[in-house]
């Protein structure tokens, strides 16, 4: 599904990421493991096409990201990639429903309220469609964030530390949501985490080493 080759990234001359080669099949589910500072977030950002690596190639769904013009890359990201951020970042002035519609609009896709309601219902937050983010519990907000990430039926679903600060039960729930939602739209799932609890749940691990 995606292929990384000779990927390198550095901040201010300090190398933070070095991936010789990593190939992943469509629909597979992966954990990117590693301690803090091992470059997990950097790798995720490169996969999402929001960070340009200093060297190497990234190819997603057969598309070399470097070959895309900036505007094409933005559209590609909006339509093919879903991201769940650690600090959810729902747009606070928009309702839950409008957060989902915003994702459709910004990805240059036609507005599809039925699809948005369907996703909210599958995540059990349909009743909150008219609520503002600050009116949600953390668990509900997390579900909405997942809903926003999958509303455009992405081919690649990325999640950055989705389970940190959660108790065991919640952790299991969130993992289950991501897994089932990825499966529902046949997306490849990549979760970056240092949370050892979900290690046992996923077969595919990609381990980044700690750096000095």
């Amino acid at each position: 599904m995606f292929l990384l080759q000779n990927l390198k990234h550095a901040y201010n001359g300090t190398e933070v990421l070095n991936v010789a080669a990593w190939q992943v099949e469509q629909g597979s589910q992966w954990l990117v493991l590693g301690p803090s500072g091992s470059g997990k977030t950097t790798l995720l950002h490169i996969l999402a096409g929001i960070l340009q690596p200093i060297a190497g190639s990234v190819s997603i769904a057969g598309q070399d990201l470097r070959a895309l013009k900036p505007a094409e890359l933005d559209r590609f990201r909006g339509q093919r990639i879903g991201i769940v951020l650690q600090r959810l970042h729902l747009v606070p002035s928009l309702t839950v429903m409008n957060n989902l519609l915003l994702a459709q609009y910004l990805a240059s896709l036609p507005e599809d309220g039925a699809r948005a309601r369907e996703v909210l219902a599958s995540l059990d937050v349909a009743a909150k469609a008219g609520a503002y983010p600050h009116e949600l519990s953390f668990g509900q907000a997390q579900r909405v964030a997942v809903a926003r990430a999958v509303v455009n039926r992405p081919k690649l679903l990325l999640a950055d530390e989705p389970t940190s600060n959660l108790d065991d039960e919640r952790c299991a729930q969130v993992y289950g949501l991501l897994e089932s939602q990825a499966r529902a739209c046949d997306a490849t799932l990549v979760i970056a985490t240092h949370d050892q609890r979900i290690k046992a749940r996923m077969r595919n691990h990609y381990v980044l080493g700690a750096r000095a």
Partner: protein
Amino acid sequence: MNLATVSFAYLRARALNTALNVLLLALGIATITLLLLTTSQLEERMQRDARGIDLVVGAKGSPMQIILSSIYHLDVPTGNVSLAQAREIAKHRMIKKTIPLALGDNYHGFRIVGTNPDYIAHYGARLAQGRLWQAPLEAVLGAEVAAETRLGIDATFIGAHGLSGAKGEHMHEARPYRVVGVLAATGTVADRIVLTDVSSVWAVHAEQYGIQDVARIAELMPDEEKEYTALLVQYASPLAAAVLPRYINNNSELQAASPAYETARLFSIIGVGVDVLRGFALVLIVAAGLSVFIALYNALLERRYDLAVMRTLGAGPRKLMALMLLEGLLLASIGAALGIALGHGLTEVVGMALTAAKQVAVTGWAWVNAELWLIVLALGVGVVAALLPAWRAYRTDIAGTLARG
């Protein structure tokens, strides 16, 4: 869902701040609108009232006072012009026509103007009811006078000495006027005066001569006692403008006043006050622009994660820039719309107050083209205030922002 929805949602989320910015801008715009409307209407009105009158000749005194008293009926006259003097002037070969005016009394603050039918013809007034005067003490009412005093044909009224209509003025009870006609509205000073024959004014003030036969007052009164207050003069040739005023001022006991010159002088005096107010309004608008800028810049800082997230959702940098610009523009358009509406409302209120004081009428139900520029100015302020925030939004570093968040 579109950018306007998002911009609007952000503005609503900061309702208090938005309201403050809109209000600041609206106050500035309203002040300028009020100034534009009142000055343009006053200027137009005063020009219309003075149109076709090249010169006013009155007794020696302030030329401004002669213009204010004889054309606009806003001031007391400087003195009188004897019949002999008036005839002397009228004979001058550079003068095409003179219209005599005899002033002195008012009815409920509306001046009673003794003149001849030329005056009505000059302002293009037509009779709405009744007829013109044919004898002394017959009066024709201007449209506004009739509407406000509710006097109809055959009604009688008593003139009061002076111009103000205040209580305690001497009332000419012995010589009541009778209404014989009402003029249609002309949009000029003719709407706000009571017109009558010159001899009516003589009759009212001639009690001391013991003349009882009012109908024959013009015959019975000795010519040397007859006086006008001023003469409205039309030149026979443009050349007269260079010669006549100086000739009159130097060779008679009269004073010539040019309406064009005096109204221009009046407006340059009022203009100082208008300029001060306009400057104040511009300061308000600049302050509003600054406030919008600070609000948008703070919003940008608060929203840097939102913006980064929007980029991850597929928004290009230009869309984020457009979002900020749109927000500035939305604020400015709401401010402009409110300001223009407020300005027109204020003008209408001022107009009502002026009408109540029987002064020149001003209405809020008018539009000046300069208001278009005012709207452009307001929108420009909104865009300029949003430029830097928009540029910063355009440059949003997605990965860096999210990594810090």
